[in-house]
């Protein structure tokens, strides 16, 4: 029998410390929809998604009600659109079908407008990347991603250049909303096939017909546990406390994932052990780092603190779930974390420090607003730096930059809701133009030769 203090602890985690399930994401394969007829392609995709995900939102809401835990997002990821649209030749059709199906099913985002180009670009991949500005400025809920590098394949520098140009163009087309289109595009190195988190979610080519992936959250719970149980204690105690907390959070994720999978009649995919912050007070990854004794996130010691946090979350969580996958680690999206926002605003946190932090945690330079006059080459070069970190360290890294037109260092952009707001961060004023103009491939590192 569960005792009173355990019950109250759980209730307290949910009500006071903002424990929630960040997302239930249904991955849907669209391979069966492929045809060269544009009209038919649209219809098949729309029907496939709306049929498969018909009950996703209602089941999610029922689970929230019955288990008393918020499930913030219900989302869908689909097979990479560059593969699905290759026969038809027009990727925009896929974007339209995805957007309309997302609206019909009531999910707030649908991911998978994706090209996997780490080793080279097919004609279809080129068309998809070229269509990103149109797709992201004329649809509402479609999220896109491009995988430009991997440990096995190296970095496709042609794709890196194209992505930098696409990001600038998206920013221009959505300048009325401070380049909000850029929030829906993630450029990856070592992208994972079962990531439930947007904007980078897609249903990988190695996945089955359909599955349920769940992303957990709970930075507030971790911070509170450190305050209560590890105040000024040595790091061994800090790590143990985080592990215990991560275990509890993940068990809830596992429970919800199993229930959702049973009720929807769809196989359970993975639980993603991530600490995903929101701009709400008490839901910040930066504040966990500060609780460890840093005056402000970004000061010396931040990378070490984040490394400990990231590792302890995984160690605690991995025992709590039968299938762990996705990105699994701490996220550091600047605009979505009140602690990061404040640190960036005060100048304590800069892009270079964030880049160092991405070496030891999940994902990468995420939700960072940069000056509107940042050149496409500089953006591409930042992507290349981040991709190199992912490639060499055999981990996922990503870039989601927002070059807000007309904005300069000192300004802020406001995205609203879970996306928060971002102070414009300084980027290096020196040119990477000649570096990016080279094109070609950066060869895979020696660590790719594992066989």
């Amino acid at each position, binding site marked *: 029998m569960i005792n009173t203090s355990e019950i109250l602890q759980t209730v307290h985690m949910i*009500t006071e410390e903002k424990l929630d399930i960040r997302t239930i994401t249904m991955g849907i394969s669209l391979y069966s929809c492929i045809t060269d007829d544009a009209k038919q392609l649209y219809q098949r995709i729309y029907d496939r998604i709306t049929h498969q995900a018909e009950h996703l939102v209602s089941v999610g809401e029922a689970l929230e*009600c019955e288990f008393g835990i918020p499930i913030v997002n219900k989302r869908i990821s689909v097979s990479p659109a560059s593969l699905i649209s290759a026969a038809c030749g027009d990727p925009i059709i896929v974007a339209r079908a995805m957007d309309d199906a997302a609206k019909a099913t009531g999910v707030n985002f649908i991911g998978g407008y994706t090209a996997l180009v780490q080793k080279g670009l097919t004609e279809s991949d080129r068309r998809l990347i070229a269509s990103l500005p149109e797709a992201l400025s004329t649809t509402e809920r479609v999220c896109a991603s491009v995988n430009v590098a991997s440990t096995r394949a190296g970095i496709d520098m042609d794709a890196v250049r194209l992505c930098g140009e696409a990001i600038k163009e998206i920013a221009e087309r959505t300048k009325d909303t401070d380049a909000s289109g850029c929030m829906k595009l993630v450029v990856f190195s070592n992208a994972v096939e079962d990531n439930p988190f947007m904007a980078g979610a897609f249903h990988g080519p190695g996945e089955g017909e359909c599955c349920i992936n769940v992303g957990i959250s709970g930075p507030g719970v971790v911070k509170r546990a450190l305050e209560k149980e590890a105040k000024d204690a040595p790091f061994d105690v800090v790590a143990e406390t985080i592990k215990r907390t991560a275990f509890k959070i993940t068990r809830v994720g596992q429970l919800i994932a199993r229930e959702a999978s049973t009720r929807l009649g769809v196989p359970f995919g993975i639980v993603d052990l991530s600490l995903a912050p929101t701009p709400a007070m008490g839901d910040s990854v930066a504040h966990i780092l500060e609780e460890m004794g840093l005056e402000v996130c970004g000061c010396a010691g931040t990378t070490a603190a984040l490394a400990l946090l990231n590792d302890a979350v995984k160690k605690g969580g991995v025992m709590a779930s039968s299938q762990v996958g996705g990105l699994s680690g701490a996220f550091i999206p600047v605009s979505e974390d009140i602690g990061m926002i404040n640190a960036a605003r005060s100048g304590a946190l800069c892009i270079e420090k964030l880049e160092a932090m991405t070496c030891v945690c999940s994902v990468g330079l995420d939700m960072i607003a940069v000056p509107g006059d940042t050149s496409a080459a500089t953006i591409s070069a930042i992507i290349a730096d981040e991709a190199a970190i992912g490639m060499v360290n055999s981990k996922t890294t990503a870039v989601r930059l927002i070059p807000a037109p007309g904005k300069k260092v000192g300004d802020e952009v406001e995205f609203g809701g879970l996306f928060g707001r971002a102070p414009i961060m300084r980027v290096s004023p020196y040119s990477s133009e000649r570096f990016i103009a080279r094109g070609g491939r950066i060869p895979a590192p020696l660590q790719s030769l594992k066989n």
Partner: protein
Amino acid sequence: MEKKNQAVVTVVGNDTIGIIAKVSAVLAAHDANILDISQTVLSGMFNMIMIVDISLSEFASLSAALTKLGAEIGLEIRIQRSEIFDAMHRI
């Protein structure tokens, strides 16, 4: 594993007369059977935990009725399936 069909009701707020009576009435009206109650009042704060059998209840309407009651008498009343507590605290 057999489904337990148990839920945990937690009630937190300022102590007034008749809280248990009112909560129990809602539970009875929705065919939920009380299995266990523990209750404390600490410096005027009322804290109650009930374990209830909800095999015969319609969860959504029971939950809505408890939330409504909570709003009426100024208390926070939550009902959650017991599995979430088992998952978090038991291996």
